């Protein structure tokens, strides 16, 4: 804790670099700059050398001190030199100015509010709520966004009076004014140079190796997640091949074959000879930990998929590890998601709507979705919004997902629907597109929507940072090294998805690093059992489920329609909620009710 009359900074540390010397809040030599900082600047050794050459003297071996000296030397633009994941504030006493910044892709969170004449910031919303002047209320417009996009759009959070600094932004608080600006933006303008596939393959590999090498920097042992998918296996393969790090890897396995990937995990473990630890996640586990999961996500979620990762980070911590590398970001940067493939097929079909063969590709894309296999073309065309007129819609790739999710809004109460009458979350999204968006390829447009939307809003937060940090484990993501991101975004789409072969260039770059079975496997989206996790034999497994979804509680809370929820509940209880929509509705409503109970009403549950 540090106070100097106008400003108070506080810090709770997870010590990873310079365990003894890196205490925070930390100041420069003359005490004119103070910082509190969450995250890692992976290239701190190189930056330090540069700063020493410019006359800066260091007292510690920490990356925290590098931030202070880099700010002294370069001012606000110091962040342009950082390779890492950060959320920090620097109090510049001479200028009476607070400078805050958040990393480019949004790995580390940074929330703020203005209440009672104070600017309050923290890396968790619950810390902000410790200030009694901050009102606690759910924002209906934020709820509308969650029930459309799966997440809120920064700077909005689910709480009306708390905001989040968007990824890639810095902020200054000075003379009573708050101003924020983007210091970095994604750009998908294609390279002018002729495409030399072999050279690009080598370049991607080199970048990934260096990104991984930098992310192994720590004064504590570093482990890795091994999901059985391509991305985490590539990262583990790189660690194995290019470093001396003794390898411990971790994974989740499921009882249900629909979700379980242990077969591919075993292939990877055998091939890479890692010391592997796994934890089995049951439906009962998901139900049991779910209230704690929401305590950490600090926002409603529509899937239970974060819960197994909460359990996994606990396993990591039990083994004494504080840092793990994972494959996050690869699907967004290098073109892995089914959504990209789906958009490509829909576009292909939409160009020839009468084709009998083109719809077959959609069935091939989702072999595991039994409900699609028997559908006629006219149904497929409707479900996938295949329509020649929609081909030029800038949001073409994401409309089916958002449209499906937005159906869940029918569960909102009359009051919430009335408050939202004039709102249209998708229209807001349309008007918030990057000005260069129309100049990019359709594939890149879909990538941008995914990389600025779901990635920071859900994948890196609810499913990433919040789940690992819940057990004081730090995730590090080589695919999100900004050099990898900048390189990938300028690649032609055909090197990301060749025909319907996803992550084409990555597979070429990593083919000798991963077992052939993992290289060739069909992609399986990471999922966990949803609504079914909360019931057994027609009864809720835990009391909180009945309590939070009772008609009385729903009526008192006022966000959802008790009649509709009771029909949904009945359907789930009887094991009849088999569709994505019903499952998302159930998890979304339950997690919103948990947010209310834990943060707004503070009644707690369990």
């Amino acid at each position, binding site marked *: 804790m540090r106070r100097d009359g106008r400003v108070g900074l506080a810090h709770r540390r997870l010590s990873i670099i310079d365990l003894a010397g890196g205490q925070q809040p930390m100041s420069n030599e003359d005490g004119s700059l103070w910082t509190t900082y969450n995250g890692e600047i992976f290239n701190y050794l190189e930056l330090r050398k540069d700063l020493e050459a410019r006359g800066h003297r260091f007292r510690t071996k920490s990356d925290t001190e590098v931030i202070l000296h880099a700010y002294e030397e370069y001012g606000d633009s110091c962040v342009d030199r950082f390779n890492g994941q950060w959320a920090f504030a620097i109090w510049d006493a001479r200028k009476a100015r607070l400078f805050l910044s958040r990393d480019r892709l949004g790995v580390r969170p940074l929330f703020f509010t203005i209440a009672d004449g104070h600017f309050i910031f923290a890396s968790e919303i619950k810390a902000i709520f410790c200030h009694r002047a901050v009102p606690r209320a759910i924002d209906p417009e934020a709820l509308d966004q969650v029930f459309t996009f799966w997440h809120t759009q920064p700077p909005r959070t689910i709480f009306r009076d708390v905001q989040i600094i968007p990824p890639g932004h810095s902020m200054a608080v000075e003379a009573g004014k708050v101003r924020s600006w983007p210091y970095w933006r994604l750009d998908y303008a294609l390279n002018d140079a002729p495409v030399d596939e072999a050279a690009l393959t080598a370049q991607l590999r080199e970048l990934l190796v260096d990104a991984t090498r930098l992310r192994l920097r720590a004064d504590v042992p570093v482990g890795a997640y091994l999901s059985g998918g391509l991305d985490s296996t590539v990262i583990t393969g790189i660690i194995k091949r290019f470093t001396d790090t003794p390898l411990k890897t971790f994974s989740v396995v499921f009882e249900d074959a629909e979700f379980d990937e242990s077969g591919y995990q075993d292939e990877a473990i055998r091939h890479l000879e890692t010391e592997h630890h796994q934890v089995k996640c049951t439906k009962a586990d998901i139900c049991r930990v779910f209230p704690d999961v929401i305590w950490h996500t600090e926002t409603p979620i529509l899937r239970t998929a974060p819960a197994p990762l909460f359990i996994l980070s606990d396993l990591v911590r039990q083994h004494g590890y504080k840092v793990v590398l994972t494959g996050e970001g690869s699907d967004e940067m290098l073109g892995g998601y089914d959504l990209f493939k789906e958009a490509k097929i829909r576009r292909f079909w939409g160009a020839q709507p009468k084709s009998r063969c083109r719809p077959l590709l959609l069935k091939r894309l989702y072999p595991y*979705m039994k*409900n*699609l296999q*028997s*559908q*006629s073309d*006219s*149904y497929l065309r*409707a*479900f996938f919004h295949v329509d020649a007129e929609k081909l030029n819609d800038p949001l073409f790739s994401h409309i089916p997902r958002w*449209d*499906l999710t937005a*159906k869940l809004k*029918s*569960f909102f109460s009359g009051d919430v629907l009335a408050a939202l009458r004039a709102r249209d979350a998708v229209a807001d999204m349309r008007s918030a597109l990057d000005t260069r968006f129309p100049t990019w390829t359709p594939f890149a447009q879909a990538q941008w929507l995914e990389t600025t939307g779901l990635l920071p809003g859900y994948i890196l937060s609810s499913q990433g940072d919040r789940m690992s940090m819940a057990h004081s484990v730090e995730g590090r993501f080589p695919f999100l090294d900004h050099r990898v991101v900048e390189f990938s975004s300028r690649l032609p789409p055909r090197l990301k998805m060749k025909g319907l072969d996803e992550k084409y260039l990555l597979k070429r770059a990593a083919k000798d690093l991963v077992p052939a079975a993992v290289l060739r496997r069909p992609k399986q989206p990471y999922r966990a059992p949803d609504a079914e996790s909360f019931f057994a034999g027609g009864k809720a497994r835990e009391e909180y489920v009945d309590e939070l979804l009772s008609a009385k509680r729903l009526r008192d809370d006022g966000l959802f*329609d008790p*009649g*509709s*929820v009771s*029909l*949904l509940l009945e*359907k789930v209880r009887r094991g*009849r909620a*088999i*569709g*994505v*929509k019903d499952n998302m509705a159930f998890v979304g409503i339950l997690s919103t009710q948990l947010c209310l109970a834990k943060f707004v009403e503070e009644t707690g549950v369990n």
Partner: protein
Amino acid sequence: MEMVPTSENVPEEIRRFVINSFLFGKDGADFSNDDSFLEKGIVDSTGILELIGFLEERFQIKVADEDLLPENLDSVNRVAAFVNQKRAG
């Protein structure tokens, strides 16, 4: 065991199923028996399967893959006609 319904109340049963299972009790008033499920966004790909499951169980009919067409299944009245035709045949 519930009685198998007569052809007169088939539309009513189907309507109730659609309102309870897909609309969760809402929109009952402004949803007519001729409204298209697809145009109103009432069914998705799983919804079709749920509907088939309900028809097979409740009306003791068999629905073949080639029957899965909007002509048969895209409104309460179309479904009712389809069910009655199946039961007659």
